């Protein structure tokens, strides 16, 4: 950890920066490969409406910056570093997507430029999230790393006094908005995996409203269970005297709404909602919010 952050600092060896890059690339590949091997996403690359693609690409920037700030190196982070990490992650996402698509022969030298661009751009979004996650998830947890970070933190504090990064806002609401943000990232990530496939709308067509109702309940139950009941690493514990429904209302239900909103956004981006009746939109959003809810819950545990 902290190796990419040290890009600017000449004191860190370039080797650790390269290791950071490697972790990012590995993460981009690990998290990006399911999408890089999805035919529908290749096709979306050339038929997706350009303004929707543009919006997705732009929306990815603050997402990466926030993610870099809150997840990457939480203890050392300044906004400048977060921007730098996000930029590197985005670039890694683009490079890895291009490389792998080229490897698969999906883009060739004679592919029209606009198609090439669309394919790489749409893949770069999940890959760049993967690059950031890879850096934090694959990062060593050995003692040296922690020491490095702390040393770095001290350095940064010296260098960046009054740079905004150390102004700690209201701790309580910050951590709450962070939880919601992490849930959004988790939901977005799984949604991007699943949404391009035809199965999502096919399932919504096969389902009756009764199935949809059951899916809503199951999604919410899974979200709550993932975080509070099943004892995964990182499981959140409730204070003893707090009834279970406190967390249910404050975290699980907002989390599900976040997952629904992200589902609708992703479906819209991929043109799945065009000329569709509101009930059908809701049905496909409910279907997509199911993996979204799992992703959101998992993100709270892992990140």
């Amino acid at each position, binding site marked *: 950890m902290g190796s990419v952050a040290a890009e600017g600092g000449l004191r860190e060896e370039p080797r650790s920066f390269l290791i950071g890059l490697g972790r990012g690339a590995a993460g981009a590949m690990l998290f990006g490969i399911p999408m890089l091997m999805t035919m529908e996403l290749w096709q979306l690359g050339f038929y997706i409406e350009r303004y929707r693609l543009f919006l997705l690409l732009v929306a990815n920037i603050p997402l990466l910056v926030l993610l870099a700030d809150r997840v990457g190196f939480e203890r050392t982070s300044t906004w400048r570093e977060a921007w730098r990490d996000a930029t590197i992650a985005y670039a890694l996402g683009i490079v890895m997507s291009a490389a792998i698509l080229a490897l698969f022969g999906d883009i060739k030298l004679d592919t029209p430029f606009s198609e090439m661009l669309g394919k790489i751009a749409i893949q770069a979004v999940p890959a760049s999230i993967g690059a950031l996650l890879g850096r934090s998830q694959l990062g060593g*947890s050995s003692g040296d790393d922690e020491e490095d970070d702390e040393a770095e933190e001290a350095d940064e504090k010296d260098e960046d006094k009054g740079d905004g990064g150390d102004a700690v806002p209201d701790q309580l609401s910050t951590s*709450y908005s962070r939880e919601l943000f992490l849930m959004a990232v988790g939901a977005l990530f799984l949604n991007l995996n699943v949404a391009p496939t*035809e199965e999502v709308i096919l399932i919504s067509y096969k389902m009756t409203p009764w199935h949809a109702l059951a899916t*809503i309940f199951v999604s919410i139950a899974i979200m709550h269970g993932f975080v509070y009941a099943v004892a995964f690493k990182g499981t959140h514990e*409730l204070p003893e005297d707090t009834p279970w429904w406190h967390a249910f*209302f*404050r975290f699980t239900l907002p989390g599900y709404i976040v997952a629904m909103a992200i589902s609708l956004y992703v479906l819209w981006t991929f043109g799945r909602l065009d000329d569709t009746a509101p009930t*059908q939109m809701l049905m496909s959003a409910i279907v997509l919010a199911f993996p979204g809810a799992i992703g959101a819950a998992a993100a709270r545990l892992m990140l």
Partner: protein
Amino acid sequence: MTEISRKQPSETEDPHWIEWATGIFSAVLVVGMIGWVGVEAVVEEDQPPEFGIAITGGNAIAGGYRVEFEIANRATRTAAAVVVRGEILDQGKAVEDAEVTFDYVPAQSKSSGAMLFSAEPGQREVRIRAVGYSDP
């Protein structure tokens, strides 16, 4: 990253009011959504797909003529693999036909497509109709 969870393994005992506000707002939305789907579940009758086709435009293209149309499914069941055939009729006799297949025409929704004919229909009648579908 386990640092975060190590730092904050438990939810705070004294939450900010904004957490409750968000929670209540979300609960309202979820209940509303469940209500919507629930009403659909109870009220909705199962109607087999029913199509309405409207020609929305036409223009000459290289080597022929394009007739654009919309196909609407008014029923509550989605149709898959909808085959739509278009014909140019000259005094009741089909002189040219074209065919297009829609992957899906969702319930109560519209899809659009186009027929490509080799000649401009002009005064002749263009008939477009769905000839078959499968259940998804």
